[in-house]
């Protein structure tokens, strides 16, 4: 009885109601190791891999591939090989899905019942967000570690604690929640091991070795005749230039091969899919942001906020999207989802990689709200705390590389969103004014990539025109 565990439909994000098994990677009767992929599950928003959280055997598949089931429904049964088939059957028959009507998970203080806690199941099913206040009742874990485990939905019962008597610390949970480390190793140096018969500084020995100079018998200018860097440099035929050239010749430039981490793999997979399946077309324009820059300076003072230029762009894009419902869309195969309000994605170069959280209902927010919201998302992104809810629902993402000194670039659409804006840098351009005079004005380069399946060229162009007029005349708009 002990080693039977339910595998249920996971809940990814509060909006997820049901999911479809797109593929069973592990077949019925097959064993699997912790970390191996058990199945691929599709929701209306994403397709994701379900990883095993322990070693085990998939004894029974309850839900075949292609079938859609609500969150919490029994998909399969894990059990040791010595558990008789009859018990597995009884378990599958008597399984009752927990009520998933309310969101379980992040910051949830209520002791929500774990979806899989039945009379026989002893551990939560993999990926099912079932970590609640009561999950660690008999565990040697610090209070902060427990809080973090509930917040990040980490199954702390699987952690071997580093504290005294195996106590689980905050750090243990934090580490368990992070992707595998990708260390950029320097490796061993191509310098011979220390030669004690030479009296020289380590740097001098290294330079000598790299330049093929024998320091034996050389008396340096350092204390007690120790050879220093200067002594070695003086021995070079062409003092000064040589060491660098030799360093370049001798440098070991073998590439270091690193397996992509999970986040990198997801980014790679999604972008490949987007660029190869979405018919992109591009609209480019330069916006005169002279007025907006001044407007922002004063506006931030008046509102006592520190909103970035990007926050102002988010605001304008939100308004323009609502004015152009045919651009404010998501594309799901042959269905177009039109949104009444504007959810705008913001591309963030987080420590772990590119991530695009979404600011919701931007059209209803003022600039200080937006600034707060983006600051919050950036903070969450950098601490790896973004949830699925933060990432879904967008129709357009703003990707800004202006601060990196980029003039302009094109971006790949972040599916299922309908379009993406690539914001370049601001340059000072001599411009002909209405009265025929010339003036240096600040120009912002903007390139929009649209999904032609849903957005036509004219629709995209009209959206750009509205956005341009808002940006160039901020006082009329904001």
């Amino acid at each position, binding site marked *: 009885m002990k080693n039977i565990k339910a595998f249920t439909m996971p809940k990814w994000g509060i909006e997820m109601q049901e999911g479809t098994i797109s593929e069973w990677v592990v077949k019925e009767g097959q064993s699997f190791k912790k970390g191996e992929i058990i199945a691929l599950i599709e929701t209306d928003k994403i397709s994701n891999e379900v990883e095993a959280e322990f070693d085990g055997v998939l004894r029974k598949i309850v839900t075949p591939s292609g079938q859609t089931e609500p969150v919490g429904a029994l998909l399969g049964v894990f059990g040791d090989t010595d558990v008789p088939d009859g018990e597995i059957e009884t378990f599958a028959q008597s399984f009752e899905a927990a009520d998933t009507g309310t969101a379980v998970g992040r910051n949830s203080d209520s002791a929500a019942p774990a979806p899989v806690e039945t009379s026989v199941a002893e551990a939560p099913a993999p990926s099912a967000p079932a970590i609640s206040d009561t999950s660690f009742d008999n565990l040697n874990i*610090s*209070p*902060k*570690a427990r809080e973090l485990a509930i917040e990040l939905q980490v199954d702390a019962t699987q952690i071997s604690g*580093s*504290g*005294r008597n195996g*106590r689980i*610390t*905050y*750090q243990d949970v*934090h*580490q368990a929640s992070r992707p595998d480390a990708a260390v950029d190793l320097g490796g061993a140096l191509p310098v011979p091991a220390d030669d004690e018969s030479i009296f020289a500084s380590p740097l001098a020995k290294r330079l000598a070795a790299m330049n093929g100079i024998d320091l034996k018998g050389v008396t340096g200018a350092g204390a007690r005749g120790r050879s220093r860097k200067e002594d070695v440099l003086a021995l070079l035929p062409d003092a000064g230039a040589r060491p660098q050239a030799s360093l370049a010749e001798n440098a070991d430039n073998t590439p270091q091969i690193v397996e992509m981490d999970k986040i990198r793999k997801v980014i790679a997979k999604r972008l490949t899919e987007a660029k190869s399946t979405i018919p992109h077309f591009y609209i480019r324009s330069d916006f005169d942001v002279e007025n907006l820059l001044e407007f922002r300076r004063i506006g931030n003072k008046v509102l006592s906020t520190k909103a970035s230029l990007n926050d102002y762009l988010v605001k304008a894009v939100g308004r323009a999207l609502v004015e152009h419902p045919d651009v404010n869309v998501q594309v799901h195969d042959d269905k177009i989802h039109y949104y009444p309000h504007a959810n705008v994605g913001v591309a963030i170069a987080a420590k772990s990689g590119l991530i695009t959280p979404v600011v919701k209902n931007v059209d209803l927010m003022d600039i200080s709200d937006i600034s707060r919201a983006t600051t919050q998302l950036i903070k969450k992104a950098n601490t790896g705390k973004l949830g699925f809810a933060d990432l879904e629902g967008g129709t357009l993402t703003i990707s800004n590389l202006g601060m990196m000194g980029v003039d302009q670039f094109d971006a790949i659409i972040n599916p299922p969103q309908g379009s993406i804006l690539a914001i370049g840098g601001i340059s000072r351009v001599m411009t002909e004014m209405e009265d025929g005079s010339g003036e240096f004005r600040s120009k912002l380069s903007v390139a929009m990539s649209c999904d032609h399946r849903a957005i036509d060229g004219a629709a995209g162009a009209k959206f750009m025109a509205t956005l341009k007029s808002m940006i160039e005349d901020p006082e009329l708009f904001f």
Partner: protein
Amino acid sequence: MAELMLREAILQTLFAEMERDENVVVLGEDIVGGMGTEGGPEAIGGIWGTSTGLYDKFGGDRVIDTPISESAIIGAAGGLGLTGKRPVAEIMFADFLGVCMDQIWNQMAKFRYMFGGKTECPAVVRMIYGAGLNAAAQHSQAPHGILTSMPGLKIVMPSTPADAKGLLTTAIRDQDPVIFLEHKALYAEKGEVPEGEYTIPFGHARLAHAGEDVTIVAAGLMVKFATKAAQGLAEQGIGCDVIDLRTTSPLDEEAILDSVENTGRLVVVDESPPRCGLATDIVSLVTNKAYASLKAPPEMVTSPHTPVPFARELEKAYLPSPGKIADAVQRTLAWK
């Protein structure tokens, strides 16, 4: 509850334990304190007044004045422990640790291990330690760091009269050698002490002051300074957990880590010089096991790497103080 000085709490506890168990024997230099007398009522009970009246009550077989040889005191205590007694030896100044180091480090601490776990040595060594009383470099040191680094010993550093009583009772009843460090500048410290017998388990720290922002770890006299600093900081809205370790071996790791996980900032106060000591030990524990929680580099407030100076002004400048501790707390809060 009675308000007692720490030295009175020690004396009461010795009295009570000797009365409870006839195997308890105290020995040390001048602990009868009867120089020039036959013992008896005139005996002052040692220069610290922590054994006053014991001779009168329990007699010369159980209250033993020894020759001036720390090695002999500890050797005798170790032997008494091995043969079924519960000796409480006194080293008048912990600084004399050096001359009895073999007996402590190589004998007492090792008996249980050298005899394959078949023997026990329930000896207590009371050592009077610490600076602040203008006693100069050879009578002011705090050797808890050296002792804590020795496996086989339990190291106790009480900071209040109530703790002194509970911890000394535990020490006398413990089956292993215990070093009981009494700070000479705390002897006159007053505090409420519960009536009757009670024990305080080793390895259980005390939260002397509670706050959300910075964790201060201290032991012995430093707990008093840290608490004073924490009280001042509290008026500025800065909350400090002050953890009184009580015993540096065993160490209450959970109390330290749990607090740092909550505050993210650590200040360790140590009366000893900074190298290879209690402060470095705690900082290393926290950086190793609570790195993920730290919001600022841990701070150490210790004496400088120099012997305790004799001049009053220099000695004052030498020791950690509430002001120095508060400054360190502010540094952890100012970390950007």
